[in-house]
Every structure is written in C-alpha cells, then in structure tokens.
C-alpha cells in the first residue's frame, strides 16, 4: 500500500510475527511428535528421566503388538459401524428435513424450524441422564442402536442443509413442477446434486464427531465386545497404565483415519468450521 511500510520496521515486525507463529506451531505439534516417539520406543526407554526424543532401537512392532494386547481391530470395527451409520443417517435425514424446511411451503414449517434451532441449546452432555434412562427404557443399552440413534440427526446438520437448499435458484423447481415431477424425485435429481459440497462438509464433521465420541459409548456400552476405539483405549489405559509405548501406538492408530480425512479434505473441514463452529 504505502511505500514507507516496506522499510526495516515492516520486515522486523513480519519476522517477529513469523517467529511467534512458528513457536505456536511447535507447541501444537509437540504432543503428536511425542506420541509417535513414545510409540516407537521400548518400554524401558519410555520411562527414563529426563526423557529422550529419539527411539533406540526403533520398535516398529509396537504397532503390531498392541493388536495382540487388546482387541483393537474389534474396536475399529465397532467405531466404523457406529460412525458410518451415524454419518449415513445424518446425510439422509438432515438433508431431507433441510430440504423440506427450505423449499416446501407448508403450514407449520416455521414452528418446526424454530423448534429445530432451539435444540441447539440442548447439548448432549447436559441431558445425559434422561437420555440414558430413555435408552434403558427402550432396551437399547448394550446395542449398536443405542450408540447410533441419539446422534442420528443433528439440529446443526439440518440448519446447514437448509442454508444450502435456500441458496438454490427457484427456476429449476418451477420447471420440475410444471413437468409434473414428484417431490422426492425433485429432491434427488435436481436439488441434492447441487448441494454436494455441503453434503461433504456435513459428512466429514459428522463422521469425525461420531468417531471421536466418548460419552455416548460410555453410557451405552458396558460390555467389552461393544466398546468403540475411544472407550476401549481409555479402558486400556486404566488397566495397563504403565505401558505407554503401546498406549501411544494405539492413540496414533486411532487418530490416523481422521487425520488422513482431514489432510485430504482440509478445505471442506475449514468450510464446516466457519459455518457451524463445530470442532
């Protein structure tokens, strides 16, 4: 903008900014680096003080051994079932509801929409006790459905989809109605293909949320064969509290699928955060 800003003070301030950001990045990444470092150490080396960063020798087989110590593969399957079902349910149900609330004019629509929004004020933790009693009443404790149903729909997801459908032009709808196209077909063939970016964002946020969910499995799954990864690893820690290399290897493996998704779809994640504030 202004020529004088390119002087030494400008360059100095940029240097300081870069330094602060770099320090911040180091602080953010150290715990993950330490996880990997611990995961590759023999048990004895992991316990020395002051700690050493470089594993010697590199114990790659920790990543195999952990599968024998605990049923990690089984927990992976449970997590995949639950997170997959929750994601699918949200994609279908949130999108259908978002579509109806955005594009169909029917009596009572405003009330439904306001009611849906109001549910954002009821976070899951705050109603954990009645939800637990409800699942107990329905006989859903210790079932996959018990871990799926309470998060099968999200008000934030409906809100997100409604916003996306609101932005579509009306002309296509009108043409479809003139052609005598039914609502469901209009939804699937005309509207849905136009909101795929939002669908992808919703899928990513929902999957990560369900994959990382700890409280719901904790409430529902008392039996070890139903434990998800998050619940399993915490139980693992309370039983083998001293075997940190294996625990960190498991932590690394648990985070890997989500990390890969994040690296591949970074742009969509960021979009979702900006729109919803969901972590």
């Amino acid at each position, binding site marked *: 903008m202004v020529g004088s800003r390119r002087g030494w003070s400008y360059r100095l301030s940029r240097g300081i900014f870069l330094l602060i950001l770099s320090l911040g990045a180091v602080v*953010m990444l150290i715990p993950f680096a330490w996880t990997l470092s611990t995961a590759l150490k023999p048990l004895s080396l992991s316990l020395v003080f002051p700690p050493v960063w470089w594993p010697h020798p590199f114990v790659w087989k920790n990543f195999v051994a952990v599968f024998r110590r605990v049923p990690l593969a089984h927990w992976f399957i449970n997590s995949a079932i639950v997170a997959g079902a929750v994601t699918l349910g949200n994609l279908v149900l949130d999108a259908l509801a978002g579509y109806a609330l955005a594009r169909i004019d029917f009596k009572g629509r405003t009330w439904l929409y306001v009611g849906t929004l109001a549910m954002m004020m009821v976070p899951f933790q705050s109603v954990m006790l009645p939800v637990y*009693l409800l699942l107990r009443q329905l006989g859903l404790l210790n079932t996959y459905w018990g871990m799926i149903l309470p998060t099968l729909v999200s008000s934030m997801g409906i809100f997100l989809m409604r916003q996306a459908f609101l932005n579509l032009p009306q002309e296509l709808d009108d043409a479809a109605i003139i052609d005598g196209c039914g609502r469901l077909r209009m939804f699937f063939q005309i509207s849905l293909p136009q909101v795929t970016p939002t669908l992808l964002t919703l899928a990513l946020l929902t999957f990560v949320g369900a994959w990382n969910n*700890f409280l719901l499995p904790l409430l529902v799954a008392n039996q070890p064969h139903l434990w998800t990864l998050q619940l399993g*690893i915490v139980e693992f820690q309370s039983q083998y509290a001293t075997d940190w290399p294996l625990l960190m290897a498991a932590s690394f493996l648990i985070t890997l699928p989500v990390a890969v998704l994040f690296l591949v779809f970074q742009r969509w*994640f960021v979009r979702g955060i900006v729109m919803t504030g969901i972590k």
Partner: protein
Amino acid sequence: MKLSTQTASTRGGRETISRPPTGATLSGRRRQDLIAGYGLSLPAVLILFVFSLGPALAAFYLSLFSWTLLNHMHYVGLSNFAGLLHYSVFWIAVRNSTVFALVVVPIQTAVALALAVLLNQNLPARGFFRLAFYFPSISSSAVITLIFMWMFNQLGLFNSFLNWLGLPGPDWLGSPHFALPTIMIMNIWTTAGSLMIIFLAGLQGIPVSMMEAAACDGATGWKTFRHVTLPLLRTTTFFIVVMGIIGTLQMFDQSFIISGGSGGPLHSTTTVVLLIYNFIFAYGNVGYGAAATVLWFLFILGATLAANKWLGQPVEY
C-alpha cells in the same frame, strides 16, 4: 401431477412466483406440499425431539422424584433441589466448572484472535500454520487426554522442560492444585486452532476499504486493531464466546478420563456434568442428578443470555 398444479409453487425463502390461483388445483398442490413437507422433515425432527426436547423435559419431571433406578419412584416435590443445594460436593462442582469456563474462555478467545490476526498478515507458509493449529481439533478428547496424561506425568516431558528452565515440576495430575489447571491448558491447546479459523473468516469478511480508510487517517498497527478490527469482529467474538461458554460448562470427558471417573484428587476435577454422571452410575440417585441437570441447564442459559446482552448487538458497517 398435472400441468395445472404449478400454481402454488414452493417458496424457497426467496421470491414467490405469483400466478392466479385456480381453486381446486391450488388446494391440491397445497395438500401435496403439506404431505411432502411433513413427510420429509418429520423423521429427522421426531428423532431430534425424542433425544433432545424429550430428555430436557424429562429432567424437570424426574427432578421431583426420588429414585435409585432399582426401587419405585416416589414424588418428593422440590426436596431434591433443597438437598442438592446443601450438598457440599455440588458447590465444589459448580465452582470447578465455573472457574474452568472463566479461565479457559477468555484465554482461548484471546489466543485464537491473536493467531488469526497474525495469520491474516501476508506471511509465507500460511497453509502449513493453519494445518498445524487446527490439527488438535480433529483428535478425540480421549486420545488428547491420554497424551496429556503422559506428557504431564510427574516424570514426563513437560516437567523435564520445566527442569531445563530451572523450575520445579509439580505432580500435575496427582495434586489437587494442578489437576484442573492441566485440563485448562489441554482445553486451550485443543480449541484455540479451530476458533482461530472462525476468527480468520471474520477477519477476511472485513471490507478492505475500512482498513485503507484507517491507514489513510494515519492509524497503524495496534490502533487499527483496537479501533477498527476489534469492533468489526464483535459478531464473530460473540459467537466464539457463546460457543466457548456452552462448551466449557459441559466439560466431562477430560475430567472423567484424568480422574478415572472419580473427579479426584479431592474432588478437584469434579465438574457438574461429571457429578451428574456419578449421581446415576456411582450413587444411584436419579432425583439429585435430574435436579442438577435442571439447575445447570438454567445456569448455562443464563450465562448465554448474559453474553448476548454484553456482546450481542449487531455490527454496523
């Protein structure tokens, strides 16, 4: 559907196409829209209400009863509330949760804002920094808590760093003075990055002309930030503070995992939500748990409304 059903077409929240309504066909379209509208939205809305609205109302109802899950419920009026208010651990939990929110929300908001402002300068490697800062947000609370338990071990990485600086390292997780602060550090570390991304979007929404006008008037660095950027970011800040209040007052996972569910040492990590959990699973006292749920729900609502009053007015460009 016939050609004539075009009359009362949907209004996607935007413009309506007005064609003269033609009696019977109009009501036919209306009825179809009514069926389609409820048919498509009710499955989602019903599930949502069953697992959010229903439990919220049930908490009010259950708070009036004494119930251990094993015996018969019997009506006790408001005595659960009276009992809860005389239960010292409840007040410890309220204090822990409130202190947690009061420390974490301002710090995480300030750190996120500072990072966003720095990242919004035209610096190299922005993509890398955004990635690094955001990465903690996608990891699970369980994994992050385990990593921090390992790093904040008495003979762990963090204390070896403190020793290197010449400082004594406390027993972070074993001491009632340091267990909750450990969770605070962990929480700020986890959320600062995702909040930074929201601030960054807010910063990029500020018209460049505003910044140029400020520069023309001779405002530099801190002055521009204080008198131009910060007021214009108020909507974003409000959103982040409200999300922060709701999130921190609900803290459960970290306390549960660090203390093994007990809220120890000496109740120092007992949050209200962890206490509610223990009312069901450890003490078998559903009535107290429901009463705490109701009180905490109202408390969070009040805190949100207070934030709304303080920060919630719209920004005028």
